[in-house]
């Protein structure tokens, strides 16, 4: 098996999810190579080596500086065809998803996405992915090579295996149409914190808060955790928080790594908007609240006391 791992980077660092995928690829065995595309990225090759790449292809070019998908496809296509690569793995992001899909068309190759695991079973590579709102799991595979895979964010943990790698410089041969789209203004970190769709951590408030003023408790905890604030339909209806924060059947669907539900009963209309969260913690003073049936950690108690204390503890732990 010869695997190529696409490494995404931001602000001079390789993304954690990409390193996780690289570690996983290394554990599957065979030849594992990584590719870094951008401008001024050679320095990241060492890190790629430490997390499992035996060879790192570096395509360093001003034309690759902007995080646009199409030029990357041109480079990857060459690497796959010339290198006899049979498997290409990506950690899913807005950018990498476009790259992977376009590459699949370019190579006429199969792409399976939203995978939460990748294993070898009965001599073939099998991807596991949730479907239909995470209510069912599907085993998927490829009927030809190369095989392309997009791994869901947060699936694999980076594991440092040490080691060094051969670093190969790549001269990008880019198509004209790939360069037609240009970046006029690149995104910068929003000082207000992540939007609830992108947040890794969400702290949500429901009627149990007692009043709109208590959303301050939710906001403080969210800030301490670097997360976003969400709200239930009931409190948005009551005017305690804006509709843009509403999670649920008639609001947004989110799947953060951590969802802390404060004073939320957990009726199904809310549940369907957040049930794919990695971890669910619920704080509610009603021991019979339906949310306790699916929360990973349920706390029966007074959120007005627990939230401020928890916020303090989180701040202290993070400062340490």
């Amino acid at each position, binding site marked *: 098996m010869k695997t190529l791992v696409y490494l995404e980077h931001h602000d001079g660092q390789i993304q954690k999810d990409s390193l996780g995928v690289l570690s996983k690829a290394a554990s599957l065995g065979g030849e594992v190579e990584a590719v870094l595309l951008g401008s001024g990225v050679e320095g990241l090759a060492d890190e790629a080596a430490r997390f499992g790449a035996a060879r790192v292809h570096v395509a360093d070019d001003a034309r690759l500086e902007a995080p646009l998908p199409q030029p990357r496809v041109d480079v990857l296509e060459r690497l796959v065809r010339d290198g006899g690569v049979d498997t290409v793995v990506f950690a899913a992001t807005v950018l990498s998803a476009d790259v992977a*899909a*376009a590459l699949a068309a370019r190579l006429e190759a199969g*792409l399976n996405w939203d995978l939460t695991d990748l294993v070898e079973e009965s001599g073939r590579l099998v991807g596991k992915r949730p479907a239909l709102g995470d209510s069912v799991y*599907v085993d998927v595979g490829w009927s030809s090579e190369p095989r392309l895979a997009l791994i869901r964010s947060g699936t694999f943990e980076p594991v440092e295996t040490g080691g060094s790698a051969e670093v190969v410089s790549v001269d990008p041969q880019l198509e004209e149409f790939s360069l037609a789209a240009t970046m006029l203004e690149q995104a*910068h970190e929003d000082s207000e914190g992540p939007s609830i769709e992108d947040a890794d951590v969400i702290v949500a408030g429901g009627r149990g808060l007692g009043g709109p003023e208590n959303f301050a408790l939710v906001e403080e905890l969210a800030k301490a955790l670097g997360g976003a604030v969400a709200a239930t339909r009931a409190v948005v209806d009551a005017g305690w928080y804006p509709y843009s924060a509403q999670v649920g059947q008639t609001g947004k669907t989110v799947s953060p790594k951590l969802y802390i539900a404060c004073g939320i009963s957990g009726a199904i209309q809310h549940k369907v908007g957040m049930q794919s969260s990695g971890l669910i913690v619920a704080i509610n003073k009603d021991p019979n609240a339906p949310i306790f049936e699916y929360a*990973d*950690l349920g*706390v029966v108690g007074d959120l007005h006391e627990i939230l401020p204390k928890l916020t303090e503890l*989180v701040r202290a*732990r993070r400062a340490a």
Partner: protein
Amino acid sequence: MKIAVCAKYVPDAAARLRLDPATKRLDRSGEGALNPFDINAIEEALRLKEAAGDGEIVIVSLGPEGALEAMRKALAMGADRVVLVSDEEAAGSDLVATSRILAAVLEREQADLVLFGQQASDSDGAVLWAAVADRLRRPLISQVAELTREDGKVRGKRQTEYGYDVIEAPLPAVLAVSDAINEPRYPSLKGIMGAKKKPQETVALGDLGLEAGAAGEAGSATEVYALGDPPPRGETRKIDDDGSAADAILEFLAEKKVL
């Protein structure tokens, strides 16, 4: 200006989604509807046409014959034409096969702008446009939350994990819009009544110069092996606060490595 909007016919959310254990694919036998996310793309196309003063909006879809009725909603909103690729051989097409078919129709149409919606409500797959853009060899802007058009160019505000990029591309181009881009209009009664009279064309793979092997399972490169239950969420722990709940939560978060 000619705009092609790629729209998908998806099983109706109300008619509980189910995976067919026999084919291991989505049971599409029930009622279906126009993918709600594509409605944003149709609305954006209508706004562009209205701003330009004229133009043509054609809806392109791949699906069973019943899809034509669902696509009528787009005509009711104001789109001009529907082209549906409907062919038994195309059933079970994956990304590679689907993008091949759509690219063939779109080559026929030669639109200035090809629009996609954010995702399909049935497969959650949010990647088709990139594959189509590559086949058409056109510039791509995805996750567009705001769109403006000037002579021969489009400018899109693209939503990423880090905030918004502003990207410009010359026409002809392929764009995928997010559901944040607009609030779709309700079709007027006149629009609903006039929808049936607008041209609705059904084509088969052969009409596009595609052979049976280019589509369906034969033309796909991925397979579905099995369906199963999701892994259990794990034990649910429940504690009563005796004053130490905050500490317990912190420990839990640390243990699960989410801090």
